[in-house]
């Protein structure tokens, strides 16, 4: 009896630990995009934004038969910079890539790490998401103009909530907004929350005057009429959200929280091409298009050097605002 129970427990454990790798160890037909033993690093914890992007992309690539199994693994820490420095030290390894995004750009600056994104081989930007400026339904602010007038008059008395720590996307968005609207970013009263969930409660409860977060997190609350969106930060209006862009409102900022893929430095051109090819094929596959739709992600596909230029520009923008804030 005892032995059987122990055995069944043991086999259950083995099931958890072994099934995912075993399932993925079957090799697929050798197409041009096949990279045997490709590993996809996620620099934050399971369930986080980069994690979901990476796992969804890996599954879509496998389902589309583009490559054999892709092992997704997590190396969290310090806003993604622990993973970044490990990737940078993996010089010349063409079989590893890292899921990343705007948050990592900020974390490099706030943590003052020696490895930066300029050290990596840029592969592609894949998605982007507009941020939104939200207030609870019972807020006295009906339009962005009203909010802005009060904010300009007394920035300190209007706490802004965001779901990321300083240097993260939800922190950068209000700072850039303030800068463009003639408010000293240093006087912005930014309250940092542990992710969009915790922020949501504070916005609904009126703890903060307004919140800044990704549009995807609150679709349901917006639809249910619990939250009112005053503005979207991206270049275009967002489907299903009745709010103008910041540029329309005369605040000259375009801000999206994007996600992309980078690879270690020192790759040969062939290795780099192979990775870009795989991502391009993935981007065109119906599996990925379906995943975009299911998750509500906006396509923002840019590859190779263009992505590299974009990275450099974003880096400069983030550096500028954080320097002004003294971070």
């Amino acid at each position, binding site marked *: 009896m*005892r032995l059987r*129970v*122990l055995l*069944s*427990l043991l086999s*259950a*454990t083995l*099931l*958890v630990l072994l099934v*995912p790798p075993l*399932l993925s160890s079957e090799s697929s037909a050798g197409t041009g995009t096949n990279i045997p033993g490709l590993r996809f690093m996620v620099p934050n*914890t*399971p*369930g*986080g934004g980069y*994690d*979901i992007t990476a*796992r*969804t992309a*890996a*599954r879509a690539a496998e389902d589309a038969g583009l490559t054999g199994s892709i092992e997704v693994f*997590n*190396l*969290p*820490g*310090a*806003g993604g*910079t*622990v993973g970044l*420095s490990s990737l940078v030290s993996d010089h010349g390894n063409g079989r590893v890539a890292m899921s990343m995004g705007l948050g990592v750009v900020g974390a490099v600056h*706030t*943590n003052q*790490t020696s490895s930066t994104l300029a050290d990596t081989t840029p592969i592609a930007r894949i998605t982007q998401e507009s941020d939104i400026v939200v207030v609870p339904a019972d807020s006295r602010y009906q339009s962005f103009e009203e909010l802005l007038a009060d904010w300009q008059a007394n920035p*300190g*008395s209007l*706490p802004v909530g965001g779901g990321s*720590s*300083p240097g993260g996307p939800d922190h950068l968005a209000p700072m850039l907004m303030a800068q463009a609207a003639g408010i000293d970013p240093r006087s912005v*009263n930014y*309250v*940092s929350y*542990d*992710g969009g*969930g*915790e922020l*949501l*409660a*504070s916005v*609904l*409860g009126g*703890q*903060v005057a307004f919140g800044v977060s990704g549009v995807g997190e609150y*679709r*349901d*609350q917006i*639809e*249910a009429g619990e939250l009112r969106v005053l503005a979207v930060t991206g270049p275009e209006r967002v489907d299903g959200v009745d709010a103008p862009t910041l540029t329309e409102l005369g605040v000259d900022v375009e801000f999206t929280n994007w996600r992309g893929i980078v690879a270690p430095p020192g790759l040969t051109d062939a290795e780099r091409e192979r990775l870009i090819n795989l991502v391009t094929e993935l981007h065109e596959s119906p599996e990925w298009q379906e995943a975009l739709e*299911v*998750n509500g992600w906006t396509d923002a596909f840019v590859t190779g050097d263009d992505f590299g230029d974009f990275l450099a520009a974003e880096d400069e923008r983030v550096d500028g605002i954080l320097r002004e804030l003294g*971070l």
Partner: protein
Amino acid sequence: MDSLNSLIEGFGTALTPTHLLWAAVGVLLGTAIGVLPGIGPAMALALLLPVTYALDPTAAFIMFASIYYGGMFGGSTTSILLNTPGETAAVVAAIEGHPMARAGRGSQALAAAAIGHFTGGMIGTILLVALAPFVAELAVDIGAADYFAIMVLAFIAVTSVLGSSRIRGFASLLIGLTIGLVGLDRLTGQQRLTFGTLELADGIDVVIVAVGLFAIGEALYVALYLRRGTQEPIPVGRPWLGREDLRRTWKPWLRGPLIGFPFGAVPAGGAEIPTFLSYVTEKRLSKHKDEFGKGAIEGVAGPESTASASASGTISAMLTLGLPTTATTAVMLAAFQTYGIQPGPLLFERESSLVWALIASLFVGLVMLLALNLPLAPLWAKLLRIPRQYLYAGILFFAAVGAYAVSSQPLDLVILLVIGLVGLLMRRFGLPVLPAVLGVILGPSAELQLRRALQISDGSLSGLVNSPFAVTVYVVVGLIVLWPLLRRLLLRRERERTPVA
């Protein structure tokens, strides 16, 4: 009545053979994951996500929820037997559970924990059914100032576990608070006590501190001082809960959910603070105060019931608000989204059948967990028959595996050993270990909530007392602090009155 009908329908879905099967798989996996230190339910769910895409959403979520509850059941096992908590929710179980195990009452401790989880989970889930909309309001109304008030209450409660020497107790608390300082300041982005090490920027995980101080410290201490002692393995006593045990545990089992459920449902609640508050409450209310610290069964029953009830609370916040209040529910939320389901205020309307099947399966899963874990208790307890040197070698092994699994950083093993050495020195010089662990749990959140509350009020101190909830808590704190003084005054007046009469 409406929800009762839906619930009955939900049972109809949950009790189909396939869904029962998935619940059983989840229950088994969850227990195993809970027993293995370091691998928590959050990580397990994330690993399982790709595998479950093939399932229909109802089956997948039934399995996920069973894993979550199962992890709670399993988590206390290593805490009690090996003094090695695998999850933060199980830290408190080690305080009384492990001394019980060493006194040969391991299976009673495990049974008290299992029944505690069952009662806590059951009552928690009933509260979920009955109070879901109300809970949504509660979660929204609680702000930083209220959290800080609760933290003050928790700090006051710490004084009751400082041990016989106040100075040593406070020294230990300060060690914990210092460890809690390590990492990135969440408000300004400055690094504190990281010595430029990137891996320390996220702070030191509570599991690593608890395992280091409890398990490694103890193993080193045993290796140093008990070599010449008896080599007898730890006795394994009678396997069942006696009548006396039951009389002492039924109240803690029932009190647990009252503390655990609300904490689970609010965004910054979690399971650590309520389990600790439950422990302190049981200690205060117990008729066997002298046994606390040496293996009081109430100190296992209450916190474990609280832990599972807080899990129900988090599930309720996730379903009604789309609020992930723990890492595990964050992964479950992500899973909802990959199925194209948006959890939030409209979930109960849109996916009514899925939600009620999920809730019904929580009940089913709890019954299965009890049926699985109660008979296992005496079997697990036999682990302690292993001779001491092998047992402690095993503890060191599992502690290291657990610490490494938290974030797969080799540096964590070094930190674990250093904290283990601190634990050894603390034992050597008679410092209680528990206040240090509490310092690590309470310190960072108290600081965060205090600063957040002050930030929201733009630096004005009135921001700390501007809600009725916070004021109520402070009044309670005041009463607790002043009670000994008041009692002395009352006694004196009575004494003065007696000679007159």
